[in-house]
């Protein structure tokens, strides 16, 4: 292995970002959006006084939180075709592909973590506000949608974003499904050109810059939107 060849990065930079980073960011965005929506529903279920709502939600969140993301990725990769076949009533497992399967996996997995954040957010709203909402004649959905959730979101924005940065880093694990995300793209070039050192160092640098910048923005945001109580 003679000397560094930083030329390999220059040659592949278009591929790395156009193919790889685009996929990584798309996956992060979709999973964050889906995860926050599903996570909020899970949090509302967990806080419900109906046992048949809170028990399954609690079980789901605890299950997801006790097994490794990689195992979840493998689970869904094989499970989703069967679930899909069950939904459409097909006799054989349907083909969903690694990309769709990874979006579903990350949405379902991150929902468990987002739901814990949203649960804390909902619980941080004073109980009196809910009663005040009911006293005004609002029903459950109106109280949640117009009083509790907007404040819960606002309070939790920094933590939700921090979790999204973790999600951004975690998407690199789709490597095990041979998907061309940013790390997957870097790894393919690295193996094709035999330039593992340069490509993995460059990948680390890019992940670092993106995550570091985003967490700095979150820190600024935190100071800006903090409510003085």
């Amino acid at each position: 292995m003679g000397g560094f060849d930083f030329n390999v990065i220059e040659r592949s930079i278009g591929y790395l970002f156009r193919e790889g980073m685009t996929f990584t960011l798309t996956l992060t965005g979709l999973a964050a959006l889906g995860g926050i929506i599903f996570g909020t529903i899970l949090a509302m279920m967990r806080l419900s006084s109906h046992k048949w709502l809170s028990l399954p939600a609690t079980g789901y969140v605890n299950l997801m939180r006790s097994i490794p993301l990689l195992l979840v990725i493998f689970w869904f990769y094989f499970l989703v075709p069967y679930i899909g076949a069950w939904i459409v009533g097909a006799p054989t497992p349907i083909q969903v592909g690694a990309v769709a399967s990874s979006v579903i996996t990350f949405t379902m997995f991150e929902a468990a973590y987002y739901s814990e954040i949203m649960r804390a957010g909902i619980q941080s709203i004073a109980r009196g506000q809910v009663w005040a909402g009911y006293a005004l004649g609002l029903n459950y959905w109106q109280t949640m949608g117009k009083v509790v959730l907007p404040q819960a979101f606002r309070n939790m924005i920094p933590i939700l974003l921090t979790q999204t940065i973790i999600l951004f880093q975690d998407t690199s694990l789709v490597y095990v499904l041979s998907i061309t995300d940013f790390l997957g793209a870097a790894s393919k070039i690295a193996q094709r050109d035999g330039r593992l050192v340069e490509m993995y160092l460059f990948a680390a640098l890019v992940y670092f810059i993106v995550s570091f910048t985003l967490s700095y923005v979150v820190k600024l945001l935190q100071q800006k939107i903090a409510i003085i109580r």
Partner: protein
Amino acid sequence: MNYNWNWKIFFNISADGRHTWLTTLFIGLGWTMATALCAGIIAFLLGSTLGVMRTTPHKWWVRFGNAYVEFFRNIPLLVQLFLWYFVLPELLPDAIGGWIKSMTPPWASFVPAVIGLGLFTAARVSEQVRAGIQALSGGQSPAATALGLTLPQRYRFVLLPMAYRIILPPLTSETMNLIKNTSVALTIGLFDLTAAARSMQEFTFQVFEAFTAATVIYILVNLVVVNLMRWLERSVAVPGFIGPADVGGGGH
């Protein structure tokens, strides 16, 4: 659905021709726990040192600790493991690099996995230790100084004993995170529990039996760790102090 369940598969001989699949899963669990234990020792010692450094009055120690945490938190664990496994041996002088590359199979993955997971988790432990020390009442350090204790003595006899008790609950979740994160090392060839389930799925096509077994084992490990830590919390609790406060955390 036309999936053929076959739970007896666990008693069939596995791909290595010697053990049953059930034993193979437990061999995987053994590697998971061994890796997590070794990495945990590194993470605890280094994380404590860094966490302490970040609360000292020395500006450069604080900066070094902060830089370490930023570095190891902002690069995905998978990429870090690749750096230790693929990149490090190339950057070291030929003699050492060659020696690393000539390591035999289990150790060639095990050693980089332990180092990578250890240093990664150290950053997270240091966050907890720092938070624990900062959660103590502000008068403790000056009071200890007034008693004539030196800086190391202040940490050893006053600050750390209470800080560790405060951060036991977040350290419990960190321990679980470490055990779960060990599975990432399967990408550099570590035969951990997830890798064992994956190999069982590849050879027998009994996908759901393999992953169900791995899931159940992870949940059991979870229960054991949580209960061990609760027992530890109770046995070191200082009478008169209310249960330890949650110092935050999140992530995985």
